[in-house]
């Protein structure tokens, strides 16, 4: 009770979670154009390649920013992905996949809720379950590190780093958004 910042942190945690849960719902509901509206103009959306290394060389586990990645997108590229899905000719997503996102272990890593324009860095774990057609299944687990920026009283996603647990991606493709 003697912690004067506790309430502020609680409110921030709540606001951040509300944003992430709402975003997951937007994607699970296939409201992709609405999802684009949750992103800042300068978003960087990035998923590096992961490798099995010895514990001694674990600093080589992930590829570095600027290098080879599974996703390395700016807003224009994300718009292209979304526009493609809406065409009815993107065969990996038509018939559409059914997805469910579980977002857990949400932690505010840095930033505060006080001033306008503040950025908040948020770590979370996710499970993205996808099933397609009659029997195809994919399940991706991983960690995300997001930068949320306060815009017009709400959050926008300004950066997302996605770290999958798999090295060889055990799916046909990564046509879902994480």
């Amino acid at each position: 009770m003697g912690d004067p910042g506790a309430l502020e942190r609680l409110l921030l945690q709540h606001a951040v979670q509300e944003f992430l849960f709402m975003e997951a719902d937007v994607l699970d509901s296939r409201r992709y154009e609405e999802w684009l509206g949750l992103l800042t103009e300068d978003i960087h959306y990035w998923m590096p390649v992961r490798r099995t290394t010895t514990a001694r060389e674990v600093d080589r586990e992930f590829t570095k920013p600027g290098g080879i990645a599974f996703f390395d997108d700016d807003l224009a590229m994300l718009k292209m992905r979304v526009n493609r899905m809406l065409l009815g000719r993107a065969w990996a997503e038509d018939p559409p996949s059914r997805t469910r996102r579980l977002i857990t272990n949400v932690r505010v890593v840095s930033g505060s809720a006080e001033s306008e324009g503040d950025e908040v860095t948020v770590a979370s774990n996710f499970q993205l379950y996808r099933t397609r057609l009659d029997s195809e299944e994919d399940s991706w687990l991983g960690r995300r590190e997001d930068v949320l920026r306060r815009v017009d009283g709400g959050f926008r996603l300004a950066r997302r780093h996605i770290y999958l647990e798999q090295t060889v991606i055990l799916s046909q493709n990564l046509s879902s958004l994480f």
Partner: protein
Amino acid sequence: MAAVMDRDYYDVETGVLDRTIYADEDIYREELAKIFGRAWNFMCHESQVPEPGDFFLNWIGEDQVIVVRGRDRVIRVLLNTCPHRGNTVCRAELGNTQRFLCSYHGWNFHLDGTLAGMPGEEVFYRGNLDKSAWGLKQAAQVDSYHGFVFATLDPTAPPLPDYLGWVGRLGLDFMASQGELEFLDGVQKNRIRCNWKIAVDNLFDWYHVKVSHGSVLQVGLFDEASLAPMEQMVLLGEFGHGIGGPGISEEKFDEAVARVRGGPGAREWYDRTVRDRMQPEATELLGPVGRRSFGHPNIFPNLWVSTSPQVCLRIPRGPGETELWWFSFQPKEASDNHKRRNVYMANHWFGPGGILEQDDSENWSHATRGARGRFSRTLPSNLTMGKGADRVAEDPSGQARIETVVNEHGQRWTYRSWQEWMRAESWQELMANHSMPPTGTV
């Protein structure tokens, strides 16, 4: 057991293929021995293992191998299986090490694969184990071409340059014509539910582009002239190597050269590619016909060379599964802009997140599924496009080619060669009985 190759799976006369080859477990087992066990398989680029002790794991069929640079700087390919009890001796997919240590009983190996020692050498083995006889098994032959390292498990395989022939070499010359390449860290790997041969033959397939990849044309990632050019050139080589895809006529090449000389040239893909090919070294390296090919080479059996510049392995994982491994490169001397563009292409076109490849895997997996049903597998696959309608044009340089529209010459050549590999009991037999690339009407 009945012989696996008890009938024609590919009918050379009609261009019709038996779908069984995409589903049958016995055929798949035979492929591991007769194709992957015999061929020169791509391992990695020399720049992936620049220092002594650097290693990279890869596969020859379903046999895992360690590609490692020794203290003598020689690159070797070692089977990743301990001669003692079969355990893997290397579990990291890349790294640097002094030795390979088996985590089961502690047998340990020098970088050249020789057995360095083991616990209890004197006390338990009583000094009776001949260490020189119990090293890691090495690939029979290892060699490289333009820095691309290949290995074969068959000591009787012809030397790499002969194996590649002019078509296989030209496939890699395309890469070398961009200057000295360096590897971009990070191999994109994913698993697709398709037979490996479908992933291979698709690289000659310029028929699927406008339908499979119609969505990327519509969103404007590519223009139609670049993604689905009308002019095609096919070059066929011994042992199943082939190059099939866009090619430009001599006149159009000269026109493009004139355009580019007059200024930056058009922004279209032809002009961009022609600009690279105008360099005298490139012309010399690629030859008068080769410089006009912008097509897709397959180094038989399973290495797609994409001038992005990337190469992609199609690694078999059973009859119904294939891993795709994308290796990306950039010219060492390129401008920062050029390098950024390389990374952009590598990250957005291919690979599991690639906007082009996503739809491929969906189609290939369902084509594989179409070979699984008891009745659907008895139906043929049709590879007849352009059959009997084109001519092989000879050239004084020796670079014979077919200049035509969209076609299935490359696919037919792949399956014809596949059948010859599968029929031959040895390299000697394959050498004696394989088809030479066609001449005249094809």
